[in-house]
Structures are given as structure tokens and as C-alpha cells.
């Protein structure tokens, strides 16, 4: 079960400043367990999307170079306070997470 993301979204000078903190191990597949010598299986977010009022505003394809518990920050022009923001990710194991927030 993927844990929900933490989202801050607020209007600054007519632009929505959005910050998303995701909880994910972001395992690259390169790291080895020192005791068994086995590599930890790769487990990382591959696809991040964001929509404002069901209109796509962000579409990211990312890989194992992103850090553990990654933070994404982006700005959306033309958004208004009270708009519904939905952020979703999907990782290489097919796990999905989706969190809704309101732009303040």
C-alpha cells in the first residue's frame, strides 16, 4: 500500500506554487545487501502526472536517479484558488498512488 503524498499548493502572484512530497524507497537496483550479496530489487517511480480541474498540467517520466522520498515542485499559470489538484504516480512494480488537494 502506497502512502498518501503530502501536498502544499498556494497562489503566489497569480501562479499556483505546488510542492509534492512522495514517500517511496526509490531503490535503483544497483545497491547490494552486504550480508547476502544480493542486489535489492529495483523499485522506483516511473511516471508522475498532475491535473488541475481534470486538465493535465504535468507529465513526468522519471527513473532511478531520483532520490528516496522525492519532492516535486512546479508552478501552474492560470490556476485559481479553490481548484482541485490531483497528483498521481506509478512505479516500476505497477504500484499506484493518487492524492487530491485544493489550491489555497
Amino acid at each position, binding site marked *: 500500500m502506497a502512502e498518501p503524498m*503530502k501536498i*502544499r499548493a498556494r497562489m503566489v502572484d497569480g501562479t499556483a506554487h505546488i*510542492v509534492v*512530497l512522495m514517500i517511496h524507497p526509490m531503490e535503483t537496483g544497483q545497491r547490494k545487501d552486504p550480508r547476502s550479496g544480493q542486489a535489492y530489487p529495483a523499485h522506483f517511480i516511473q511516471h508522475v502526472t498532475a491535473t488541475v480541474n481534470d486538465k493535465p498540467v504535468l507529465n513526468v517520466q522519471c527513473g532511478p536517479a531520483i*532520490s528516496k522520498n522525492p519532492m516535486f515542485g512546479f508552478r501552474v499559470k492560470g490556476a485559481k484558488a479553490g481548484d482541485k489538484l490531483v497528483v498521481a504516480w506509478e512505479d516500476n512494480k505497477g504500484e499506484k498512488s493518487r492524492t487530491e488537494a485544493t489550491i489555497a
Partner: protein
Amino acid sequence: MSDRKYIMLLSALMLCLAAVSSVFGEELYREHYPDAKIDPARGVEGDVGFSDTIRYWRDEAALERSAGLAEKPAEQWKLNWKHMDLDRVELHPGHLAVDEGEALVKKLAAREAAFLTCLGEGAADLRGKAAAYPKFDAALGRIVTVEGRIEQCAKSVLNEDIRQGSPASNKISVYFKSQSAGKPIKVDLAEAKVMEAYRRGEELFYRKTGQLNFACASCHVPGSIMGHKLRGETPTTPFGDAAHYPTYRTPVGALESIHERFARCHGQMRTQGLKPGDPAYVDLEVFVSVLSNGYPVSVPSAR
């Protein structure tokens, strides 16, 4: 062969002599940084006339006025990094740690409800409790810090080791302290034992140590390196600095308690750091906490 024996005998003799002279001889030669004459009764307001940067970070209004300093590398230090506390910066993993700490406390309290009342000293409500730490515990006969309390409660109630400086201890401590966020720090100076610890901590603050012969004061009093560049960093005032620990350290990528921070400083001063929870570090924590008296607890924070 006999040559070697002779050398070994001689070196053993010299070791003995060294040991004897360290017992009976005079004390270790120590240098001290000149006393900056800090008045403990003034708390965080002691920074007025010390570094005078408190006017940039005393409260929300001051931080709002001086927000522009964050953009100027030469003047950023004047904010004392207070613009990184609480909700003033966007999300960082310190916020996650509060949730993880809460879950951990709930899990341990579900096993043994006394764990929570031990942390809260009789009350299950932890709100506002952390602002009075470090304090003297008469029953234990020693000064306890927040991490020390967690360790002691885990040992006495759950018979479990939550060592100070361990990730679990830091998470619980972040949660415990975040329950007092915004409450002014109030270390009880009227308690004689706290004052004794303060004086010991003060002595440690000025005592030079390590290969570089640095004291805390070498970087953190006016007229020292404070406000000037030191290996890419600019040391700031010690006032108000205990308020934001344990903090999420961005260069480390993990939570760090104040004792771990002391040990990291010791490494940078080229001397051996002590273990978190060492009595010397407790004294030093009392000293810096007294210098934060009156400043609100600012957990979670990032540095």
C-alpha cells in the same frame, strides 16, 4: 633477541611513567576562548548586544521584514536559518518524520499505555511538555533531555533500547517536540542542578579542544569567525539554536539530534566526538537551551 626484550622493557617502563605522571602530575594543559559574558537570565534576548541578529529573526513579523536576506549569500547568516523552521519552508522529510514518530509512539503506547504517561510525566497529553526540557528529574537524580526521557521510558516501561541518536529516538523526539511547536522554551533556571549544569556547559563552550584547538566560542561569539566565511559556511549566533532540534539535515539526508550535531562539530574541530547522551553533551545542551529561553520550539525544521 635480548635487544628487543630490552626495548620492550624500556617502552613498558615509559608507559608506566606516563601513566603515573598523568595521575600525580598537573592537570592537562587547556586553553580557553575569552569569556563573552553571556547572562543566562536574559535567555534568547541576550543576543541583543551579542550578535544583534535577533532583530532579523525574533518573530514572524521580523522574519517577514528580513525575508530578502535569504537571497543574499553574504547576509543570509543574519537570519540564523530561522526561515527554515516550521511551515516557513515548503515540505521536507522532517514533516514525514513527525508522522512516523506519531505512529511509532502510538504503536508503543498500544503495547504499554504507561509509555505515554512516562513521556508526559503522568499525563498522556504531550502538548507543551517539551518546552521545559532539559530539566532536572529529582526521581532520577540527573538532568534529562527529551531524547534521554525517551530512552529512559523505553527502558523502564517497555524494557526496550531506544538509544539516543538512533533513528527511532529521533523520530519520537521530533514528534514529542512538534507537540510543543510555538511554545516558548522555558528551562527552569531556579533549579540549582540546572544552573550547575549550565555553568559546566558554559565552561565547555569556551574550552578549546582538538587538533585545530577550537572551542565552540571560536566560531560562535562576536569577534570570532561568527559572520565570516568558514569553509563555505558562515557560523551564526548560538542564541535560539536549540529551538529547532532534532532537525532534518539536507546535506545528510536524515534527522539529526542536537547531540549528534555536537559530535559532528567535534569531528570538524578534529577531535573525537562523544556518544549522544554523554553527560558533557547534556551540560552543553542545557547551556544552549538556556540561550534559547523565550524562543518558541521550532520543530519540524530543516537545515
